[in-house]
């Protein structure tokens, strides 16, 4: 693992009106490492990802991604991060190919990359059908293609395998898995699976950081207790 910090957070908070969705999160994630974020529903996992994706401004504290400070240098981070959420962020009336070509143009990626990715996730046969006709798993595969289309060094993944069967999940491993070599922040509700792929583990509850450490330091029991 390299030692340059790809993501550095110091006292990061995000407030929605009166509610603190994130409260003082601090961590440093090295380049090409994987941070797995655990926490029950409403713990602030998705908010954390949205702040890192530059979609939300931090209310307090500091966040640096790839050495760029948010939100002042957000523009410099966009294009170097990929986001995969519960929502596929695709136009239902457009085909997978049309959706991906749109993003290829927005990211200045050669259109051949779209065909490569559609082949990689075995969607080439239905690539010209509107995505509203796709199953949830097919949508997730298309969304994964969108997230990595521009080969981002940082990937933000919100329960990326939630709708995938084991076969589809295996197909996405080279794109979004540890072997992709990217710095990854992913949320999970699976203690054993999450710990297995983590270099660093963060526990959130009510927006607060309850633990941060290596999988060996944290252990399954602490993660399980988070959901009690």
């Amino acid at each position, binding site marked *: 693992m390299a030692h340059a910090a790809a993501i550095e957070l110091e006292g990061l908070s995000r407030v929605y009106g009166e509610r603190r969705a994130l409260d003082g999160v601090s961590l440093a994630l090295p380049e090409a490492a994987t941070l797995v974020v655990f926490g029950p529903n409403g713990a602030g996992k998705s908010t954390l990802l949205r702040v890192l994706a530059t979609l939300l401004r931090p209310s307090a504290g500091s966040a640096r991604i790839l050495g760029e400070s948010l939100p002042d240098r957000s523009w410099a981070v966009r294009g*170097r991060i990929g986001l995969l959420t519960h929502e596929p962020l695709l136009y239902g009336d457009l085909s997978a190919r049309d959706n991906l070509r749109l993003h290829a143009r927005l*990211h200045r990626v050669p259109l051949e990359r779209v065909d490569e990715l559609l082949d990689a996730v075995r969607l080439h046969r239905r690539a010209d059908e509107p995505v509203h006709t796709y199953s949830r798993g097919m949508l997730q595969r298309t969304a994964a293609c969108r997230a990595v289309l521009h080969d981002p060094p940082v990937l933000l993944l919100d329960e990326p395998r939630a709708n995938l069967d084991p076969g589809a999940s295996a197909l996405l491993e080279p794109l979004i898995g540890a072997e992709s070599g990217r710095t990854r922040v992913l949320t999970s509700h699976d203690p054993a699976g999450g710990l297995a792929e983590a270099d660093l583990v963060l526990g959130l509850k009510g927006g607060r950081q309850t633990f941060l450490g290596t999988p060996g330091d944290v252990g399954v029991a602490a993660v399980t207790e988070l959901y009690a």
Partner: protein
Amino acid sequence: MSTVAGPPRVTPTRVAVGALLRKELLLERRAGQVIPAMALFAVTTFVVFRFALDTTSVEGDVASGVLWVTLLFAAMLGANRLFVTDHEEGGLEAFLLAPVDRTSLFVAKATTFFTFLVVLEIVAIPAFVVLLLEPGLPVAALGRLALVLLLADVGIAVIGTLFGALAIQTRSRDLILPLMALPLLVPVVISGAKATAPILAATGAGALPGRYLAVLCLYDLVFGLLAYAVFDFLLDD
């Protein structure tokens, strides 16, 4: 793959506008959510006016007023739909993740809306002539009518796009958009109607009042620049 030290990547605005325009037109061709609604609304309104005014034909100021009120409300219908798909299907968020100047979305949406308005008028003007207008509009007058319509369309597209983007982030967007946009569009409607009235006069197409065209040009310029300057902030968290 890029590394931590990799330079920021920014896509040129013209490339982003081209990509977004292509998407907008493709979506409208596939789903047809905006133009059919606007055109059907306009034609239906002309029919209603025909019965409400209890006349088979109108001319001059009345004809101009009927035409502009109908086009304005049809345009509001379109402006209300302009960002709905992007908002509901997450396309707006995906756009915000791209390394592009956010005003490229404004340019693409305003251009799309302008195109929709032109298509609306290609359908609505013949319907207006057949259903309501006093017979005898000279063919030569169509060029002058088109000039007024195009100048007004720029203003409507700019205001509609600006407030469409604002309204989509609120819960009652169907109410917010007309409440905010219609007062600002009054000068466009007044100038458009005043400039159009002589063209639709029964005595034959009159000359275009230059000062109303000048107002439309000035309005387009001022609000175009204003919208370009503030649009980025509308999309910010």
